[in-house]
């Protein structure tokens, strides 16, 4: 058990060390894209600017930020290979990947919080607005789900290129499509004031997002060879 804890801690440290140099660059890119849209929306339709800016940030910026975070944290490698520098010494791959997963979820949630809060402040014209706190945690939950999903995708294809596939599938199927239930897009939109996803209440959608955030990454970790 102690060895697994050491491995998980080392995995978290490994992902954090990989994120540290270029993670801020990914955040800055996402923030810049969201801010440009917020400024344009504010200039054209000030009343609907917060909603539209938030929809853009949650629908496009957060998945791409999550993709960037996962690419950095895994060293753009397949999931099992991404922790080889730990597992080669005899540390458990699964436990190390659990640490990497925790770092990814924490980093994507934090990035989402920053992006959404700053975007809302700009869209509201300087003040954060009454819905800032609620939107913040919803975005953090959604981004964590995207991060976990992209991490699971990194289990597939050579050099973990499956992470691109799952984000693309979310873009194609994640709306109101009949296959869209397990993808975060519709649930995130529903929680942020959009139409209900597949007839589910907001509480149920948040449960689905939570399950995706916890489940997909965990499953990908468990099915990896130790």
């Amino acid at each position, binding site marked *: 058990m102690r060895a697994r804890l050491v491995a998980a801690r080392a995995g978290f440290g490994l992902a954090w060390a990989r994120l540290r140099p270029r993670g801020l660059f990914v955040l800055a890119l996402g923030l810049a894209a969201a801010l440009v849209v917020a400024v344009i929306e504010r200039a054209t339709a000030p009343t609907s600017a917060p909603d539209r800016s938030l929809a853009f940030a949650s629908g496009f910026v957060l998945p791409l930020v999550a993709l960037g975070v996962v690419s950095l944290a895994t060293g753009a490698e397949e999931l099992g290979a991404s922790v080889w520098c*730990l597992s080669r*010494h*005899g540390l458990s791959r699964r436990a190390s990947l659990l640490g990497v997963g925790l770092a990814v979820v924490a980093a994507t949630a934090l990035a989402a919080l920053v992006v959404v809060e700053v975007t809302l402040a700009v869209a509201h014209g300087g003040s954060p607005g009454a819905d800032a706190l609620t939107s913040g945690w919803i975005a953090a939950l959604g981004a964590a789900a995207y991060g976990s999903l992209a991490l699971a995708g990194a289990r597939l294809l050579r050099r973990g290129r499956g992470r691109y596939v799952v984000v693309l599938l979310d873009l194609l199927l994640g709306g109101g499509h009949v296959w869209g239930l397990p993808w975060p897009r519709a649930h995130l939109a529903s929680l942020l004031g959009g139409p209900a996803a597949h007839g589910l209440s907001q509480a149920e959608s948040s449960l689905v997002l939570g399950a995706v955030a916890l489940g997909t990454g965990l499953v990908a970790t468990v099915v990896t060879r130790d």
Partner: protein
Amino acid sequence: MTAPQPSAVGVGALPVTAPPTVELRRVSGLDRSRRGWLHDATVELGAGVHVALGTARDGAAALAALVCGEVAPRHGRVLVGGAEPARRAGARRGIAALRREPCLLPGTVRAAVRLALSVSGGAPDACLAALGPLARREVRALSRAERRRVELEIALAHPAPVLLLLEEPFCDLEPADAPRLRSVARERARAGACVLVVGGGGSDAAGLADRVLVLERGRLVASQPNAALERLVAPELEVWVRSGGRALVAALAAEAEVDTLTWAERPPGGALVSLGARDADAAAAALARAVAVSGAELVGFAERQPARDRLVAALWAPPPPRPPRTAQVSPTGAPSPPPPAPEEPTP
């Protein structure tokens, strides 16, 4: 009814007395960079120093990646200490490895060393002392050769490895460190570890190995005791002669130390002489005596190592010939007569 046992190429040449430490059972696989396949390899390696000769395209990189558990085999099983390193963290704990492409934990060298040795139970302070000023640097600021140096020290600091895997160990190595590496490898082997050196040249293998494996285009074509190799990697001295070539050859032919001697005239009056001896020193001493006797004028000389192709050709154990196609046997046991030739069509 028992399944037929896979035949191991050349394994019978050197019986493994102790239980094998590393076993490859009909293993096929690829390294992560997909540089070369290993096809259907079956071999058992016990305590001792084993050298696998071959390039990455011959499957040497795949062999290293499979044995240390970096990749799982596509077919077959790889066992190190009885467990599969690609699937069991415990099996990897007993492997100390120097890889061609080093992989260290990002951060400082000190942190990377401490983490690696905390798992294996080695002494990080001695390892850091051996690394000297490298220990204070960031891993990302190190060159490839420096990373390999760090990886080598981590591998050598493993207190009791089951397998010490050294992939091209003499590449990027300071010349002063080579004797130490050889002595540590031998010491580990004497302590019961399986030391597997992958890649490198024939002379490295001859100086270190108890047993030599030869990889050729993804197949393990030979597994021989080192005595076979020592005979083959005896160096040749090539000598360029300006004048007095014939006299020099005559003097060399009289030398007892000289095993092989070939020469070709290079007009006007010159010659190119190749001589083989037990080792380079013996060849040089014989040459010096012959020059003194013959009075030949030399332009220069150089030591030549035998090409890998020559080693492979000499060590290759050809597969046993297939039995001829059996004639149909009649119930009485006597071979039936061949079927009659078809009759010629009548016009």
